[in-house]
């Protein structure tokens, strides 16, 4: 085994599908783990941790969208609904039944997954634009109708729920500062990512990819497409539910306004920019979307005292920039940032004989 993956030839499937194919990759992963679990939480300051937490939350939401759109080809524009279901399930379990937080996260995932299956049922009959319409219905039926009109009434607390301090805890550890919340997010994110990657290299993942590439061909090959589509909806919704339940711990507050339709669109934007059909893409997209907005703050805030109009006139550009960046990515980088990353990696892996 060499240190660089170039020139590695596999003899068995087991090798081809291994997690760590060379020591070099293993070392890279250990480095990444060090950054995530040591450098960011202990060396970077609370602001960076806050931003990292938002990136994790965005990536968790986008991971479910990636699975549905990027791997199973089921376009969804209503994923925020499943985040909301997860968030509300977890909150209500904690507030009403005093269920431990971690258990509530798990139940939230399952409830959101089942809820997602309900809205995935039309995928047995319709696809493409018509499926997008039903996913839109998921957003509006769930968030604007069921959650606001009925679920928010439970307990008589009014629209905005807030969790009393100390109610979000894992065993003896109370999640009351940003570092602990970040750690929880990082651990959940790693587990979810490993789970999804594992699924994707299994029979289930191959079935999903077959359905994405051509559902009729997949069916002729003996794949029960309804079952696998619904399974994709379940897993996507499950991840969304976990993301929503995690969101509760970052704020200890919840209202339907946290899950607007815009957020569903945002998550699709994340994977379009990051790269459809790539787990890397989820992370690159989330990094891009969050860091661009934070970067804009750094660019603009020091200038405002000198050009006060920036705070009023320039900011419309921010909304436009979001749309424009998606358009530009679709035109010039249709495979997203993940593809670019892959190219960079290959350039170095194959250097100096990159032909």
């Amino acid at each position, binding site marked *: 085994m060499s240190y660089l993956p170039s020139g590695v030839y596999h003899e068995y499937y087991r090798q081809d599908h291994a997690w760590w194919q060379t020591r070099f990759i293993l070392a890279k992963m250990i480095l990444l783990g060090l950054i995530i679990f040591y450098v960011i939480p202990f060396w970077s*300051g*609370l*602001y960076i941790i*806050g*931003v990292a937490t*938002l990136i994790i*939350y*965005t990536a968790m939401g986008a991971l479910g969208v990636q699975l549905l759109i990027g791997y199973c080809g089921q376009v969804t524009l209503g994923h925020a609904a499943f985040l909301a279901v997860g968030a509300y399930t977890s909150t209500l379990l904690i507030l009403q039944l005093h269920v431990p937080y971690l258990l509530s996260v798990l139940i939230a995932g399952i409830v959101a997954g089942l809820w997602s299956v309900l809205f995935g049922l039309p995928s047995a009959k319709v696809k493409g634009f018509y499926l997008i319409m039903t996913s839109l219905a998921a957003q509006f039926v769930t*968030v*604007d109708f069921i*959650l*606001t*009109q009925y679920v*928010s009434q439970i307990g008589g607390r*009014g*629209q*905005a729920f*807030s*969790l009393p*301090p100390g109610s979000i805890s894992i065993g003896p550890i109370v999640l*009351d500062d*940003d570092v602990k919340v970040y750690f929880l997010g990082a651990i959940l994110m790693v587990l979810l990512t490993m789970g999804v990657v594992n699924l994707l290299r299994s029979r289930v993942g191959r079935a999903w990819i077959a359905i994405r590439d051509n559902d009729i061909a997949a069916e002729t090959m003996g794949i029960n497409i309804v079952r696998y589509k619904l399974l994709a909806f379940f897993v996507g919704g499950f991840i969304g539910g976990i993301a929503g339940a995690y969101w509760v711990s*970052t*704020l*200890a*507050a*919840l*209202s*339907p*306004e*946290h899950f*607007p339709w*815009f*957020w569903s669109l945002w998550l699709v934007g994340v994977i379009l920019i990051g790269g459809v059909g790539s787990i890397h893409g989820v992370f690159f997209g989330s990094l891009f979307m*969050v*860091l*661009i*907005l*934070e*970067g804009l*703050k*750094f*660019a*603009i*805030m*020091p200038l*405002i005292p000198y050009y*006060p*109009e920036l*705070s*009023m006139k320039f*900011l*419309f550009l*921010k*909304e436009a920039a979001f749309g424009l960046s998606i358009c530009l990515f679709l035109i010039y980088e249709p495979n997203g940032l993940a593809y*670019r990353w892959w*190219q*960079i990696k290959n*350039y170095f892996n194959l250097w100096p004989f990159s032909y």
Partner: protein
Amino acid sequence: MKRKLVVFLAVISVVLLGLGGAAWAQAKGEVRVGSLNDTTGATSDVGKDYALGIAEAVAYVNDTGGINGKRIKLFQYDYGYRIPEAITTYKRFRDFDKVVAVLGWGTGDTEALSPTITKDKIPYVSASYSAHLTDPKKTPYNLFFTSDYSSNARAAITAWFDHVWKKDPAYKERRDKGEKPRFQCFYMFASPYASAPIKAIKDQAAILGFEVGQDQDVSLTALDTKSQVLAAKSFMPDLVWHGNTTMSVATALKDAQALGLGAHHIVNNWGFDENLPRLAGAAAEGVMGAAVCAFFGVKTPLMPKIMEYAKKINPGVPAEKRLIRTVQAWGAVLILADAMRVADKAGELNGPGIVKALETFRNKELGLGSGLFNLTSTDHRPTSGVPIYRIEKGKFSLVEIVDLRKRWPEKWDKEWLGW
């Protein structure tokens, strides 16, 4: 291929440089204040003017001596009413800009951040006047300068009851028969701002003896409310409460007129400004609403300054386009600045010090036409008097300043705190 790669790496490095290298030295003798505003999102119809007002009021405070000689350094940012962005911006204020207080915006960000700011002990003077924030036992660091939404709602329905239902000859027959006036609410259920005072206004409706119909869900960004108006028509309300912001309220008023709903309208303060008669035209005639301070340009002790600074700092926005929101922004800045001066003199210019200073203010007049400011350590409702205005020929005329504490002293003191 290679050139593309170079360009790509250059872009990435510029972004990273912007992130890392933009730290700037903290100057001595300045007080750092963050401001979260919505100038592009769902509430930007009222948020833009408020954001302008914040910058102007801070300039005024700095020109008149600042905080005992220290200048306020304002960090103002738009978050587009997206909660996740409000969170990271707040964390930036807290951990990077190191602000002592935050001027917040809507109920969405305020209630979402409430547990966090309580934990961090950072005063959060918001433009959300939700009564949920007035109980210092639960939310000691959530502050605002004027009457809360629930008081606005109670005052508006009371004013209509006293001035229209009891006096208008059109209702004489029904009054004599002992009929109850019929009342209904139009607001966005999903919006914590719009739904905050609903429980209170229904309670007040019960006290005054109204018959309450089913709520109608109207989006904050609604461009068509015909289905809601038609649904309301079957109930035939005499009075409709509009709990949204101006644009949505104007749409509902126009549709109500077009479809002949035949009801009177009362509006919460964020739906009641100079733009309402402009947008709704004749449909806004006779509409009553709560205004938490003077309208832009109306004579109050500080108004000449407000107009002067509006012209000076933002010359591009003509005076006739400015709104009451500017005055509200001044209220938030002035009350915070006054509290910071007191806290600074006591040598504790920090979160707890600022709140302690605010809680010493008794019957404070801000010069903005708002009620007298009172805050105690057990009650964070700044004022009990709510000015109710009516639109007559496109102009606002004061109907009454409804003082809820005077009318219902028992209930005000014991029952109504915190919702």
